[in-house]
């Protein structure tokens, strides 16, 4: 099941949010029984780890370390990872060999930059002891000022100052900008200079060696220093990576949760649509001509452990969003979001300067998730091909891994509409549809067909929780098929 074979986007499924994705890109929330995609689930940071040494860091520790790994570095010259190498200098005498320990240096395998290039001495231990560049010192006052500002904000928070009292009783703040200035006044302001000389006469005569000047990317890799010369660059600690868990926005259940261990590529929870929704692949299609019906063969595969029935509906069948326990907040949320759109123009009156927005009262406690539902958008697709919707339905048996190896079990007692089902084996069926590109399509246009698939979905979640029988209901999904380009007459 290589991704290259599966991830062909000829068949697209319309997600609940209106985006078109392939089946492999979709999730299926079993609690809402809706399709979700990476756009309409909420992403959360699960765990921090270093992508090079695979070390796990708890998030507070990661924050303290500024989201950087202590032991791994990236090359300041080409942004690749640096590897630690043992200095290969052979000791001159056996005595020296005993006395001296192994030394290490950093080296880039891509651009062959090494820590020796900038004269960094070799280290006696492989990890942890790499010298850090002296932090770029702003003037001391800068930090002092910040601390003072912080103190002021504390007193404000304890409710001692008048400003915060005003805030509490809901009055607009008293001269907000002046207050900030009081804090700032404690430091000596910068004094403007008339004499400025940032022009170096040498540049007019001295020829420049391009290899000694850093490029803009090399400079911006170290934003605080932004070195101009190559001998000023310094190894940069590698940024940590994260594992994400994905959460359905309407019911707050996880649709994907990875295992904590960075070395593991498995998931604790993975509700991929691939395991729940029938997969469709295009088998063949007859040459497509404007206005001429053509046969389209598609293959349906049932990935679930339950038998399903599939029927076809016209493409423009409206898809209602089901109401269930979790959706009470959800549907309300959608109202909220659309209203939020309306309320946003109010932002215009708020200048981007630090001005207070009038607060009236703050007792309104919105449900956290509600306002974050993704408003469904209209499908961004133009259908230029009619699909003859068959009236009959067909059955897909459950997936049976053992049947794959069973060559003799051809017999099945399913009564099929022979016009619709061409061939079937275990949980797969080949279906014939008649498609007709619209009359006005010119030769060479990409033909896009669409229909709504209704499949019987068996929800086992409630049965486990409440000891009931599995719920069965029809779930509708819109499908968009890219059938290739139209051709001219024979």
């Amino acid at each position, binding site marked *: 099941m290589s991704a290259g074979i599966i991830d062909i986007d000829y068949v697209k499924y319309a997600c609940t949010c209106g985006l078109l994705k392939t089946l492999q890109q979709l999730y299926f929330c079993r609690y809402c029984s809706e399709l979700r995609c990476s756009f309409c689930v909420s992403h959360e940071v699960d765990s921090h780890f270093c992508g090079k040494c695979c070390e796990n860091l708890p998030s507070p520790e990661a924050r303290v370390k500024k989201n950087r790994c202590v032991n791994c570095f990236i090359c300041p*010259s*080409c942004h690749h990872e640096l590897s630690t190498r043992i200095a*290969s200098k052979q000791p001159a005498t056996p005595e020296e060999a005993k006395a001296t320990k192994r030394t290490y240096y950093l080296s880039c395998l*891509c*651009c*062959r*930059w*090494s820590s*020796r*290039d900038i004269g960094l001495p070799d280290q006696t231990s492989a990890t942890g002891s790499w010298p850090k560049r002296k932090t770029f010192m702003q003037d001391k006052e800068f930090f002092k000022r910040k601390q003072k500002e912080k103190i002021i904000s504390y007193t404000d928070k304890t409710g001692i100052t008048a400003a915060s009292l005003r805030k509490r009783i809901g009055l607009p703040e008293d001269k907000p900008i002046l207050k900030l200035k009081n804090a700032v006044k404690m430091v000596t302001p910068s004094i403007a200079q008339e004499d400025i000389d940032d022009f170096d006469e040498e540049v007019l005569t001295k020829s420049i060696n*391009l*290899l000694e000047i850093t*490029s803009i990317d090399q400079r911006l890799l170290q934003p605080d220093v932004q070195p101009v010369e*190559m001998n000023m660059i310094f190894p940069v600690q590698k940024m940590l990576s994260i594992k994400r868990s994905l959460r359905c926005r309407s019911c707050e259940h996880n649709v994907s949760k990875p295992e904590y261990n960075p070395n593991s590529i498995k998931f604790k929870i993975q509700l991929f649509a691939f395991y729940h929704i029938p997969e469709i692949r295009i088998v063949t299609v007859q040459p497509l001509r404007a206005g001429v019906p053509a046969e389209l063969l598609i293959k349906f595969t049932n990935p679930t452990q339950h038998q399903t029935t599939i029927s076809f509906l016209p493409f423009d069948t409206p898809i209602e969003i089901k109401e269930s326990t979790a959706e009470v907040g959800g549907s309300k949320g959608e109202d909220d979001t659309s209203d939020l759109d309306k309320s946003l123009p109010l932002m215009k009156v708020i200048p981007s300067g630090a001005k207070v927005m009038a607060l009236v009262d703050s007792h309104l406690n919105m449900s956290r998730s509600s306002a974050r539902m993704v408003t469904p958008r209209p499908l961004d697709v133009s259908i230029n091909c009619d699909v003859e919707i068959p009236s009959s339905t067909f059955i897909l048996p459950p997936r049976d891994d053992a049947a794959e190896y069973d060559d003799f079990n051809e017999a099945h007692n399913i009564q099929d509409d022979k016009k619709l089902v061409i061939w079937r084996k275990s949980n797969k069926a080949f279906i014939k549809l008649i498609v007709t590109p619209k009359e006005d399509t010119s030769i060479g246009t990409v033909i896009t067909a669409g229909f709504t698939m209704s499949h019987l979905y068996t929800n086992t979640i409630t049965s486990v929780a409440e000891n009931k029988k599995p719920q069965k209901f029809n779930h509708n999904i819109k499908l968009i098929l890219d059938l290739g380009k139209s051709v001219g007459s024979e």
Partner: protein
Amino acid sequence: MSDIKMSRNSIKVMPGALVCEESKLRGDITIGKDCIVHPMATIIAEAAPIIIGENCLIEEQASIIYRVPFDKVEDKDNIPPLKIGSFNVFEVGCVVEAASIGNNNVFEAKCFVGNKVTVTNGCTIGAGCHLTEEQELKENIIIYGSNCQMREGLSKPMPQYSQMDTLMKILPNYHHIRKPSVKGK
């Protein structure tokens, strides 16, 4: 036709060199002491003889081609032989047509060096880099990345002795080896 070509082939393999029989050698080629030529490596001395120095490693699918230098098309009979120095590494799939190659150079996988390029000593041509412009690479120049960025290294690349030793031991176990044509003492 092929007979004429075959007759021109004159391969000299110095003692200690390991040249696999499946390698494709055409023209007048001298392979120096302790060199390793992998199977499916290609060396074509089209314009004039190629003389490879000591301890060179030529990996599979690598090709070294000596074409008529662009400035000597008129004067075909007086083309000097291509001398390749010692401790050069030609990695998998590289194509090297350079006009001259010094010592301690590394041609990384799938790189291409055109026939207008002069490679001096200690240079590294990074994986996938294409060099076609007429230029002379100064000592210890490193070319890397998709845009052929250039930087100057501190020292020449280290020779990979341990890799050479391993290959010397392993290759004869699985491949037919060309016998040294020049007898050592």
